[in-house]
């Protein structure tokens, strides 16, 4: 199977063989540079899919590949962000953003020496998500939306080829969420990074994604795969257009079906 991220016939159970399956016969392929969204009933294995694709969990059956290689250890070329921003409260926003560079090679070796250059990179990222000048603030001084932006920067700072977003905007109010849609849209357009977005929000999925995967109830597998062809760059106005709403409506039908 070809693709930048592929899962083929993947089965996984957290408790080991014989325990209840989280996903089963999960097969999908995501192209390089693609923006993929995964939707499905809760507990169906969406987060499990993310863990399998980043090498945090390994399948019982089937194969997972990323960038052409079978995943047998943490992939290191991925950045992740979750619903909880999980910023470290004792670090400033900028130092939070720099954290991955203290872990991942080759930056890990260089960061002490090239701190100034890395700070510049982090500051540029912060500016890109609308957090210019917030680098010296501590997380508790930031609103929820700003923390999420910082968390995105942390996911992006090591220039990952793959960005994994697991319900990143679930805790935000509707306006902030739409602002962040645009932030993600622009990041994707500017960097060409491959993105996998798990979400409950079907409008979010349709607005952002090139392709949407609908998962079945546990044990999860792909029920429906939907190409979204609205031209880019997409504007928030699109979300009020009839074809958009039809698409959301159709997906909703699939989810209702999946929950049965």
């Amino acid at each position, binding site marked *: 199977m070809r693709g930048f991220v592929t899962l083929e016939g993947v089965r996984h159970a957290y408790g080991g063989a014989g325990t209840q399956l989280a996903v089963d016969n999960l097969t999908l392929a995501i192209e390089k540079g693609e923006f993929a969204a995964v939707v499905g009933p809760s507990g169906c294995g969406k987060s499990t899919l993310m863990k399998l694709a*980043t*090498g945090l969990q390994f399948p019982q059956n089937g194969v997972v590949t990323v960038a052409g290689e079978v995943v047998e250890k943490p992939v290191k070329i991925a950045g*992740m962000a979750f619903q*909880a921003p*999980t910023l470290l409260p004792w670090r400033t926003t900028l130092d939070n953003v720099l954290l991955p560079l203290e*872990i991942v090679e080759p930056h890990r070796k260089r960061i002490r020496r090239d701190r100034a250059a890395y700070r510049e990179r982090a500051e540029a990222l912060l500016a890109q998500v609308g957090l210019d000048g917030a680098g010296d603030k501590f997380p508790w001084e930031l609103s929820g939306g700003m923390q999420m932006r910082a968390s995105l920067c942390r996911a992006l700072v090591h220039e990952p080829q793959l960005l994994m977003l697991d319900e990143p905007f679930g805790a935000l109010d509707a306006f902030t969420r739409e602002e962040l849609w645009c932030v993600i849209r622009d990041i994707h357009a500017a960097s060409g990074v491959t993105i996998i977005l798990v979400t409950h929000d079907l409008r979010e999925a349709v607005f952002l994604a090139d392709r949407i995967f609908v998962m079945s109830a546990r044990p999860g597998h792909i029920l429906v795969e939907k190409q979204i062809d609205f031209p880019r760059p997409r504007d928030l106005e699109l979300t009020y257009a009839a074809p958009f709403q039809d698409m959301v409506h159709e997906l909703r039908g699939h989810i209702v079906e999946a929950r049965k």
Partner: protein
Amino acid sequence: MPTSLAIRAAPWVFVIGMLVVWQAAVAIFAIPPFVLPPPTAVAGAIVQYWNAIWYESLFTLGTTMAGFLLAVGFGLALGLFIGWSRTIYAGLYPLMIGFNAVPKVAVVPILVLWFGIGAVPAIITAFLISFFPIVVNVATGLATIEPELEDVLKALGASKLDIMRKVGIPRALPYFFGSLKIAITLAFVGSVISESIASNHGIGNLMLQAQSQFKVPLIFAGLVVLAVEGIAMYAVMAWLEKRMTGWAHRSTGFASS
């Protein structure tokens, strides 16, 4: 600001108020001094026996601090070990609870058997009684790292040691410094218990002797000295906590006791 002044004056007002009530109660109800001596008599005893009190209180402070410092070292090490993995945490936690459930007074006779009477049993009792909260707090701080954050770092290839250094240990610090306040208080309990059972020195022993000689004001003087030492050390720990982990008091989600 009058309110902040009032808040700062309040502890003193209450202490003085308590002393006044105490003195008045003794006078009004004609309580004999061998039952409850008035504060003035206690103050008199402190002055009269100052040399002994001074020496014995330093002795107690010494054994307490020695036991406490041992507890800090050992508690940190064991806490790091237990908090290192959730499996170790789950396995050793019940054992720790069981250990803590043993009343430490019961251990003193064994310590005397092994080490004789004096400073050593006092130090060890102080250590035994005070290391538990340190271990539990450090281990809890480490073991309750958000799984998502761990995933973020693991996906980058972070080792367990990386995660501990970057997240676990800084995160456990407020728990650790918070536990020191509890630990120092308990350390005094341990050393004084041991001194009053098995020592020729220390405030515990001084009070026991005062009791056998019916010097009731001196017993109370011993209590006052212990209170002063306890409060002073508690204040030092509280100050240290604030100094080292100020960030934890700004952000939510961190317990400190």
